[in-house]
């Protein structure tokens, strides 16, 4: 009891006294600490029971019965500023993650940032990998036009462990525009699904290195990026492919993207490539999307076309998606979204589905084989994105 009251007196009381409302979140300790958050409440339903539609390879998805945890999430962030050049950020995210089928809360971001001179920033700790145009803010629904990023493109990157390491970023002003170059290094992770049991395990991706270039041209932004890293592959891989030196496997991911917002016309597009140094036949794939919309006051109707295809003669399943949606900025800190998608897997297992399986027996064992979808699937999404 004594301890609690002491904590209250020394920490909580001045916090309450000095708190003030910020534009986003609440400021404490003379604006040195900011607490803010974001979230999405969403429901998805499809017209098919052939497979469950998933956003990011979760263990469960939507079919003819609605699923409310595909996109729903809650992020809480605490940012502390020690000086004008030193700050720390911690962000927790509650969501249904890769291969899991229930909500879990984890510290997704935890880093220290130093900005010694104008334009230069160095971060160390844990943060998201910037593998796409909006990869690090894709969980913040409110920050984006769409209900969810095109899975044909954003689902292509196999690295899902974020980055544990550091990055150095420098913004170079060029007349009224700017070029920001970011170099990063560290460790990430990918999900390995056991061939026999179907059980998912996280495995390390070491020596992750990436270069990211962003041109900020006032009403438009261009982005070019390349990442590579050495995945620690399951030893079973070497047994299946004895002719490959899988210990030297290099995973490569490249992307180009642009976004523009001019006279209420919004256009955004990206093209990405996934490659492997030893096993292109298994993972080589290209993805693209283009989205266009027109802002009418608080309404932003949009249309999107996205596609994923096998590359380098690989066996990656294709998928094509035509989406129509509406973002409505109904409240000052919340947006309502509707999105309908027509997804064609071209009679394959596709990219976004938890497929039905059949058990294949072989001498001494068995494995689960995913079944293809025989018809295109239409999905319906309604969501509310908010920030505070």
């Amino acid at each position, binding site marked *: 009891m004594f301890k609690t009251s002491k904590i209250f007196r020394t920490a909580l009381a001045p916090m309450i006294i000095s708190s003030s409302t910020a534009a*986003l979140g609440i*400021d404490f300790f003379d604006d040195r600490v900011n607490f803010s958050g974001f979230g999405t409440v969403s429901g998805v339903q499809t017209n098919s029971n052939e497979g469950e539609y998933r956003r990011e390879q979760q263990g469960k998805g939507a079919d003819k019965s609605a699923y409310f945890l595909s996109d729903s999430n809650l*992020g809480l962030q605490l940012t502390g500023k020690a000086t*004008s050049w030193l700050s720390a950020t911690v962000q927790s995210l509650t969501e249904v993650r890769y291969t899991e089928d229930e909500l879990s809360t984890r510290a997704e971001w935890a880093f220290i940032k130093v900005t010694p001179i104008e334009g230069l920033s160095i971060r160390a700790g844990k943060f998201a990998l910037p593998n796409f145009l909006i990869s690090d*803010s894709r969980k913040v629904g409110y920050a984006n036009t769409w209900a969810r990023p095109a899975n044909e493109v954003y689902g292509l990157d196999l690295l899902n462990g974020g980055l544990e390491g550091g990055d150095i970023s420098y913004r170079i002003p060029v007349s009224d525009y700017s070029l920001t170059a970011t170099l990063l290094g560290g460790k990430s992770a990918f999900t390995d699904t056991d061939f026999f049991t179907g059980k998912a395990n996280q495995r390390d991706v070491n020596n992750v290195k990436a270069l990211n270039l962003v041109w900020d041209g006032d009403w438009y932004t261009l982005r070019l990026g390349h990442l590579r890293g050495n995945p620690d592959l399951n030893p079973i891989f070497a047994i299946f492919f004895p002719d490959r030196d899988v210990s030297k496997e290099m995973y490569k991911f490249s992307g180009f993207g642009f976004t523009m917002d001019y006279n209420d016309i919004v256009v955004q597009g990206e093209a990405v490539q996934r490659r492997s140094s030893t096993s292109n036949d298994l993972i080589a794939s290209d993805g693209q999307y283009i989205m266009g919309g027109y802002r009418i006051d608080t309404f932003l109707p949009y249309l999107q076309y996205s596609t994923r295809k096998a590359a380098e003669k690989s066996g990656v399943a294709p998928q094509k998606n035509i989406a129509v949606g509406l973002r409505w900025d109904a409240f*000052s800190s919340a947006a309502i979204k509707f999105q309908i998608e027509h997804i064609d897997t071209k009679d394959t297992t596709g990219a976004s589905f938890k497929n039905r399986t059949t058990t294949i027996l072989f001498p001494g064992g068995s494995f689960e084989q995913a079944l293809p979808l025989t018809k295109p699937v239409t999905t319906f999404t309604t969501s509310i994105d908010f920030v505070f």
Partner: protein
Amino acid sequence: MTRITRTLIVTSLMLAVNSAQADVVVIVNSNSSISNLSVEQVSDIFLGKSSRFSDGSQAVPIDQAPDAEDAGAFRDKVTKKSASQLKSYWSKLVFTGKAQMPKQVSDGKEVKTLISANPNMIGYMDSKLVDGSVKVVLSL
């Protein structure tokens, strides 16, 4: 004729009132070494792209609440984004730890009170509020 004259007088009066409302100036502390800023420089500071003035000193932007009159004029002429576009823009930066949204106060008087006491701050307000405690660096 009289009707036309009357209409003209009323219209010009309305225009005069409108332009008076939109007479917003960007200000810094009177002791600041900064004397002139371009719309682009102010926009960069208020959009989190730049955190320092041209002389290398720290720049701390002070915004007004989105529904404040000056805030509308400032958005039209400087950041060129609607209130919801700005919030969406900032949520992208804030939740990736890239920048913190400017502090918001309710009106121009509060902006002046803060800026007259802090040489690093920059804000905007109605030109009628200008006095010796602040310096105008840009007229909108």
